[in-house]
């Protein structure tokens, strides 16, 4: 079985977000980049399937050269080889088109439910559409039985157990697997695993990023004494007008 895992290269979840160049560019100064947390679940499940079923695992990232340490980390965690599509991932349609170019022939395409930078939550659906195969998200459990895939998918207020056949695309979230930390041997072997750099397919842009904006700063908190919760009720009614 051949598994493709799509990983995004995103700021660590504790990062402060800032923009430069007149709010047109992300300020990566001092920011630590990681494999997207959901993508990390997808990768962890792929490695588990590789260990239990003998699958091969390829990771793909659409990004410029700066994403290579993140890709090497995925190789250190246990992926066999990697593809980097050499382009800035400007929007989901662009990213999905690039992934679909390389996803043919894979039995299972795993992604995160969403990236934590652009929060589109859509690349999996788009890739599924482009390849003409089903896509499911967010998937919390995924087991392979022959050519069948048994999954638990989160729905609002609960979950749903779903049966589908390969090939398919799944957007993953916890508790599908436990995040894996690379060990020394993994880190050493990752250095020599194949990482293929390919140029992007050109396409007509359907959207243009104009600028970024930070939310207005929060006004200072109003503290209320624990002995006077009645005041909180009054403020919620008359000042905040939310109850």
């Amino acid at each position, binding site marked *: 079985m051949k598994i493709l895992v799509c990983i995004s290269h995103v700021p660590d979840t504790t990062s402060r*977000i800032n923009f430069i160049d007149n709010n047109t560019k992300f300020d990566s100064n001092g920011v630590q980049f990681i494999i997207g947390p959901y993508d990390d679940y997808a990768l962890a499940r792929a490695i588990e399937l590789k260990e239990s079923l003998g699958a091969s695992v390829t990771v793909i990232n659409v990004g410029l050269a700066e994403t290579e340490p993140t890709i090497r980390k995925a190789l250190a965690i246990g992926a066999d080889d990697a593809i980097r599509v050499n382009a800035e991932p400007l929007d989901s349609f662009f990213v999905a088109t690039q992934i679909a170019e390389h996803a043919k022939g894979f039995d299972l395409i795993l992604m995160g439910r969403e990236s934590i930078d652009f*929060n589109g939550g859509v690349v999996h659906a788009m890739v*599924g559409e482009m390849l003409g195969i089903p896509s499911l998200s967010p998937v919390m459990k995924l087991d392979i039985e022959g050519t069948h895939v048994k999954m638990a998918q989160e729905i609002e*207020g609960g979950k749903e157990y779903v049966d589908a056949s390969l090939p398919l695309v799944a957007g993953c979230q916890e508790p599908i697997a436990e995040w894996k930390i690379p060990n020394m041997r993994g880190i050493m072997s990752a250095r020599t695993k194949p990482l293929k750099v390919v140029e992007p397919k050109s396409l007509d842009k359907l959207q243009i990023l104009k600028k*970024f904006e930070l*939310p207005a700063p929060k006004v200072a908190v109003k*503290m209320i004494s624990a002995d006077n919760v009645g005041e909180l009720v009054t403020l919620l009614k008359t000042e*905040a007008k939310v109850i």
Partner: protein
Amino acid sequence: MTSLVFLESADGKIKKSSLEAVCYARGLGGSVVAIALGSIPSSELESAGKYGATKVLHAADKKLDHPVIQVFASVLIQAIQQENADILIMANSALGTPVAAKVAVKIGASFASNVVDLPNTSSGFIVKRSIYTGKAFSYVELTAPKKVIALKKNAAELKETGGNATIIAFSPTLNDADFTTKVISTEKASTEISLPEANIVVSGGRGLKGPENWGMLEALAKTLHAATGCSKPVSDMGWRPHHEHVGQTGIKVAPQLYIAIGISGAIQHLAGVNSSKCIVVINKDPDAPFFKAADYGIVGDAFEVVPKLTAALQASK
């Protein structure tokens, strides 16, 4: 200009977030057509009229009672063609967002999810999106003639116009090959208020010490008609179900009021709640980081403050 709004439903009820999408479409100007799929009572369909739809297409086929992304996308495309719609609008949700994405790919439309405001159309069509899990916004110009928008929950104001909608039966062609995924079973708590849709959320963290202490939180939630949420460690430890976990790696909420009890306010938790209109924090540690993100704060022991707050709310009714 014609907008088509997809009305998502659960247990025969149209979701609040879909009615918000109708209001958003009305805000765009032009005519507003809505579409609902599966078994839904006509009284529910009419509610779309109250918020500004003039026409509701209803594809009542029972095969559509259970959502399958491929199938829903194909039905919406047929409706777009029939109505010659320029813009498809729906709520961001586990179902709506991927359906929207598939439609966009198929018809070559420009697509944006997580949209928080009406577009600026003074030159082009520029939408505002929430990105970096609520920590920032981006402005994106949608350049294709057809557009698909998935609207962030609670981003559009829900306002009735008192209008009426004509309900029209719609019979799309359903392709059996699209029904490739089979639902084996569903686990669902259908009586509770849906967390992503709720106007008020009462959320508890590790400070509550154990699942046996959730009774007081539920009593507070009940008084406020609120949904209950929790922090990640709480669902990791199995005190609460996973679908209640709020934050960066859980549900993102944007209610009118978010009450956080015994939650420290780690940045990953804040990422899921920072779009809330008003945040109340109850924590015994005055230095808990959550106070910096709060509108109102009480330093105190949750086990004393929460029952008092519930009583005060009941007394004020």
